[in-house]
């Protein structure tokens, strides 16, 4: 695993998130559920907890956007780049952006939203890419992931616990 230069991390254990807009590829409740499940992946192995807000500025602002979307890091249309996210901090930092030119799905027929969200939220919490191809933080999307048996690799767990420690009893 690796962390961002300077090891940025959240200095609090309770974080807020906000889903600012939605892709039309999926019903809203499916998107809400994918994001919530992706947060739970990290919640289970750290002392971190998350709550959703629907107005105002959250620690983690989640958007769907195409091409140039205000951060000077434009998306590239269908394929290749699926999403990006920012390391912990204020303002745009911590935020997650999904490329809405992708076909987002609940299963793996298109791009699975849960898998990409879990990866991007890893960045929001301070993890950089891993060189371990079994890790969630490996940067290449794996459509053969078994969603029913999804679990973080030990590499992901070691990485996130190097920043936040294990869950509190």
């Amino acid at each position, binding site marked *: 695993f690796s962390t961002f*230069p300077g090891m940025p991390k959240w200095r609090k254990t309770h974080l807020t998130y906000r889903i600012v807009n939605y892709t039309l590829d999926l019903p809203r409740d499916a998107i809400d559920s994918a994001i919530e499940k992706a947060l739970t992946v990290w919640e289970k192995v750290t002392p971190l907890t998350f709550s959703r807000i629907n107005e105002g500025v959250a620690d983690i602002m989640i958007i769907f956007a195409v091409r140039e979307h205000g951060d000077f890091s434009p998306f590239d249309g269908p*394929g*290749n780049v*699926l*999403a990006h996210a920012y390391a912990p901090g204020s303002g745009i930092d911590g935020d997650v952006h999904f490329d809405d030119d992708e076909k987002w799905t609940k299963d793996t027929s298109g791009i699975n939203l849960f898998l990409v969200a879990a990866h991007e939220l890893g960045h929001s919490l301070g993890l*950089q*890419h891993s060189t371990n191809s079994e890790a969630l933080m490996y*940067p*290449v999307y794996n459509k053969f992931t078994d969603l029913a048996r999804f679990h973080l690799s030990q590499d992901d767990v070691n990485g996130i616990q190097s920043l936040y420690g294990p869950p509190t009893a």
Partner: protein
Amino acid sequence: YPLDRAAKDEDDSMNLVQRYLENYYNLEKDVKLFVRRKDSAPVVKKIQEMQRFLGLEVTGKLDSDTLEVIRKPRCGIPDVGH
């Protein structure tokens, strides 16, 4: 006609590789990957860096395994931080 088609496919692949190395492995934008250069060392080094990171055989060449991974969807965060 087939020859032209093959040449275009190759150009598209090369552009993709160029962008990939620029985006994720800090290949300098003024280093042209596909112009024959006296010194190909910087490009080979970047390809090796990418292959090492992605767990591929480190050849420094754009073999089929390397091109296959480059064509797969991925996260937009660069592997090498500024």
